[in-house]
């Protein structure tokens, strides 16, 4: 069994209560940090651990913390981004539901490291049960003297609040989240200034994902160097993967980064293979915004080496043959799934969730959705495929926030790797309504796939 850091005690009954959590060694990190370490030492440990942001971008957390401006007499804030709304990602919800104290412990240690006296957990509006769970857990921690004034006699004060969002995907973007937290319309801000300089209420702010904050706990317990030994290369530690799709056992898994993708899909310890004895056709490795890959490129790199579950290995080959770690929303498609329909579905999501602030994303997402809808329902034209590529190129990189890129990449990559299937939909409008294109050559070994890379 691989090491578990976050989900080690997940199956202990009552782990969601403070008593059981403390019996299992919970809140050790708070005691260690507040009593023996200075805030700068905590930041230093996180830097040493090499922990990378688990929300999608993979920016080193310790580095992000050290960028926080510290002007005299100005409050600093830590905001936890629990607005998890990426299709295919559900790890944060799982963590908050079953082991809420892990997040609260991480929030206390992180807030202490950053010198924040008030911290917020911004939870997506649909997650009402999780909001209740967190509020209950905070009340427990407060009663035990772990929150509030003078925590554990260290002289450090912290107030922790849970804020429900309105359920918009865009509020997972950090500046839109801050706008929403301030009570405004959730439009992303134009950067610079970055939140580390002027964030919540114009004060320096750090926004971190739930999992990144929870991962601070084992880092403090075991020291940053120990944490950095887990994983591979610059992808250190463990990562929660939300596996879904046509798998025998979908669910949330904690993996050590560097696990081969093939092992993750097929081994009995993890997903247990493709359901109903079918074959793998394609995967989305990190949530709906990352490029989709055919089976052969999922399991192997373009040079034939096995692909690993790590930030570097998944993005190996750039956009031509690679994808991204993203937020760890792993979706598997079997041979009977239609990539065109899936691309349309993702596109529909981004069309619905675009905030409408900047023009390429506002108009472009709707355009792509309509064209994809037309192809999927057998009214497409051959020229539509190139039109989609062109529109996605016009959105990508020209928007205020990454939602534009996130909307463009799945479409561009689906056409890059599955062009045959799109063309088949156009050529066979009637047949494509009744049958699926099937697996074609998408699972054949890499030598064939290199043809795709040269396109």
């Amino acid at each position, binding site marked *: 069994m691989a090491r578990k850091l976050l989900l080690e005690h997940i199956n202990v009954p009552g782990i969601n209560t403070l008593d059981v959590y403390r019996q299992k060694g919970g809140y050790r990190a708070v005691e260690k940090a507040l009593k023996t370490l200075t805030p700068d030492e905590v930041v230093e440990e996180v830097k040493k651990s090499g922990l990378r942001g688990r929300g999608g971008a993979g920016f080193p957390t310790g580095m992000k913390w050290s960028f926080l401006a510290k002007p005299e007499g100005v409050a600093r804030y830590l905001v936890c981004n629990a607005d998890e709304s990426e299709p295919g990602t559900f790890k944060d919800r799982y963590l908050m539901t079953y082991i809420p104290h892990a997040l609260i412990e991480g929030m206390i240690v992180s807030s202490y490291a950053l010198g924040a006296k008030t911290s917020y957990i911004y939870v997506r509006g649909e997650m009402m049960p999780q909001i209740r769970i967190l509020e209950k857990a905070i009340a427990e921690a407060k009663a035990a003297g772990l929150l509030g004034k003078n925590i554990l006699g260290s002289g450090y004060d912290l107030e922790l609040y849970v804020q429900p969002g309105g359920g*918009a995907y*865009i509020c997972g973007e950090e500046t839109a989240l801050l706008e929403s937290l301030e009570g405004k*319309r959730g439009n992303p801000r*134009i950067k610079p200034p970055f939140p580390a300089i002027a964030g919540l209420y114009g004060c320096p702010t750090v926004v971190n994902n739930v999992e990144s904050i929870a991962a601070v706990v084992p880092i403090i317990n075991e020291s940053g160097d120990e944490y950095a030994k887990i994983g591979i290369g610059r992808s250190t530690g463990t990562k929660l993967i939300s596996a879904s799709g046509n798998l025998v056992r979908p669910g949330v898994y904690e993996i050590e980064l560097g696990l081969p993708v093939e092992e993750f899909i097929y081994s009995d310890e993890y997903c247990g293979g493709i359901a109903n004895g079918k074959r793998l056709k394609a995967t989305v490795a990190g949530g709906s915004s990352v490029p989709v890959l055919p089976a052969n490129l999922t399991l192997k790199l373009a040079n034939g080496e096995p692909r690993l579950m790590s930030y570097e290995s998944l993005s190996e080959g750039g956009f031509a043959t690679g994808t991204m770690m993203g937020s760890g929303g792993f979706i598997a498609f079997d041979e009977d799934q239609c990539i065109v329909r899936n691309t349309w579905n993702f596109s529909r999501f981004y*069309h*619905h*969730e*675009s*905030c*409408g*602030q*900047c*023009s*390429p994303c*506002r*108009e*472009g*997402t*709707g*355009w792509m959705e*309509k064209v994809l809808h037309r192809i999927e329902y057998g009214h497409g034209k051959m020229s539509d495929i190139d*039109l989609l590529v062109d529109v996605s*190129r*016009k*959105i990508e*990189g*020209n*928007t*205020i926030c990454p939602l534009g890129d996130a909307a463009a990449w799945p479409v561009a990559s689906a056409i890059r790797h599955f062009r045959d299937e799109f063309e088949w939909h156009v050529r066979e409008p009637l047949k494509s309504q009744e049958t699926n294109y099937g697996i074609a050559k998408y699972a054949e070994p890499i030598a064939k796939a290199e043809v795709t890379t040269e396109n």
Partner: protein
Amino acid sequence: MSEKVKVTIDGITVEVEPGTTILNAARQIGGDIVPPAMCYYSKLEGSGGKCRTCIVKVSKGSEKDPRPMPKLVASCRTTVMDGMEVMNITSPEVLEARAGVVEILLINHPLDCPVCDQAGECDLQNLGYEHGLQKTRYEFERRTFERIDIGDKIQLHMNRCILCYRCVFTADQITNKRVHGILNRGDHSEISTYIQTAVDNDFSGNVIDVCPVGALTDRTFRFKNRVWFTKPVDAHRDCPTCSGKVTLWYKGADVLRVTARKDIYGEVEEFICNTCRFDKKKTDDWVIEHPTHISDASVISSNHYETMIPLPVIQENLRLQEANKVELEKTAKF
């Protein structure tokens, strides 16, 4: 005083105050290298960054950090650094991306210029003329909304709106109470008033001037005339609420409408009050100054001259061609 910083835009170097945006630095140089701006408005704090037409390429970040910026940036919201090198019209990448933005801005625009009051002084029309395609690739039904009368003086025609947010900023910053804003999300977003409240405020009429397209139009001028048939004249009056400096738009002896004075980027010089704009439409109310200067390239000035076709003698003679350069350029333009 802080020292000035040097920035090079399309090979032209200019020294500007630190903290200036690339767009404003380009405006100090002037000419063709100024990126077009649909949402940025220098008089409105916080505007800009939304329409993406002003995107430029930063090929050198600064003297200290010469790395180029990874993406195209919105010039209206990016401040200059010492030694920065910017490419606007010299970069094919920028021109292509800008053409893409224009195409995207136009896919849901009704293109009803023949019946639109803004035609002739519309930023989107000018932009489309310079960067747009001949033919649309968008084959779906365009987004439509009902027209809304907000108050008895202003009409909102949401179909034409490009969601630049200028009118929202105007209401926030010029008037003391904002009652309209953006509702909904994505391409369903619309400018609207909450439960159809009328926009009723001394300075609310300025939203008409800041609107880059024909989404907010003056109901007292609606369908009265085409702008290029009217003659603009600068005038002023003693106004207790605003500066009283306006442009009167004449047709014959009648003042058809009153607007604020606009500079070469189509931005108003000073905001005016609703009394000046809607209620003072007699020549007696005003002290006339002089005809408004309108750029030769503008369609508004085109109709004020009998002919633009150069005489045959000019077409043959180089010296005469040189002397009539401005006129000839205008001929080429239209």
